[in-house]
């Protein structure tokens, strides 16, 4: 993958550039998936692994946040359920947006427009309705590239 900004040099951005120069991109995309539902988490993990992504799963937003804080630059994207006890997806999203530069996708069985609107206005780069199919997950790398491109230019 070749990219150059106006200065004619390759920007390695803030992350360790996990896949820079790797031919298999987006294989190896480092995903953190957060959902308090064990069944959903199991399905997501399998789907994401089938996409050849590197998956870390988490069933609590607080834990996800501390993982992200401790391991900055080790994740490319976060996928989070909206309705979770204690900290919910919106709050997690707010923390991530203020502390780090990671794209966040929200997922919910709740398709109500006002909730989707909330997700978008809070800064989620996408909002997916459960159940999510693997084809949708195959495309999430676009959010990562888009964010990096925005940061570069």
């Amino acid at each position: 993958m070749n990219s150059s900004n106006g200065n004619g040099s390759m920007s390695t951005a803030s992350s360790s550039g996990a896949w820079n120069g790797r031919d298999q991109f987006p294989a190896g995309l480092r995903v953190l998936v957060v959902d308090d539902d064990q069944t959903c988490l199991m399905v997501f993990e399998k789907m994401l692994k089938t996409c050849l992504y590197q998956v870390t799963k988490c069933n609590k937003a607080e834990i996800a946040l501390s993982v992200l804080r401790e391991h900055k630059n080790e994740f490319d994207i976060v996928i989070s359920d909206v309705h979770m006890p204690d900290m919910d997806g919106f709050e997690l999203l707010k923390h991530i947006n203020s502390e780090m530069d990671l794209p966040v996708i929200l997922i919910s069985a709740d398709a109500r427009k006002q909730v989707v609107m909330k997700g978008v206005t809070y800064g989620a780069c996408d909002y997916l309705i459960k159940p999510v199919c693997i084809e949708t997950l195959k495309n999430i790398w676009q959010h990562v590239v888009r964010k990096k491109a925005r940061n570069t230019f």
Partner: protein
Amino acid sequence: MERNPMRRQLASMRKSLFDQGYLDEQFMELEQLLDDANPNFVEEVVTLYYRDSARLILNLDRALERRPLDFSKLDGLMHQFKGSSSSIGAKKVKAESTLFREYCKSGNAEGCMRTFQQLKKEYATLRKKLETYFQLARQIGPMESANRPK
């Protein structure tokens, strides 16, 4: 066309689960994830679903015994349950969950209780059918049962 009678039976069981509306396309999504390393993936997910959702059913039962009903709490519990059920493609169960949530929104206690009884029936029926299905699938052998007509 399946020549082996057991495979035919399995295919026919599977078809009727879809035709009768017990399962939707999400179940097929799960089947697509079967591979050599995880030949029983679908069965494992379904087993986890029934184990994990039992807790939600219990909490819903308890919440429905309180007077007056806390519709907001009931709605929250059912939302979780619906998300879980939709991830395995449990179509009828999911439909009852949606109906239940409508009754919560309109504060219809009787509707909630009636719908929940129906939901539990569908939940139990699906479990039995899937148990039988997976039992047969295991007898036939993992790779055979992984071949699905598309």
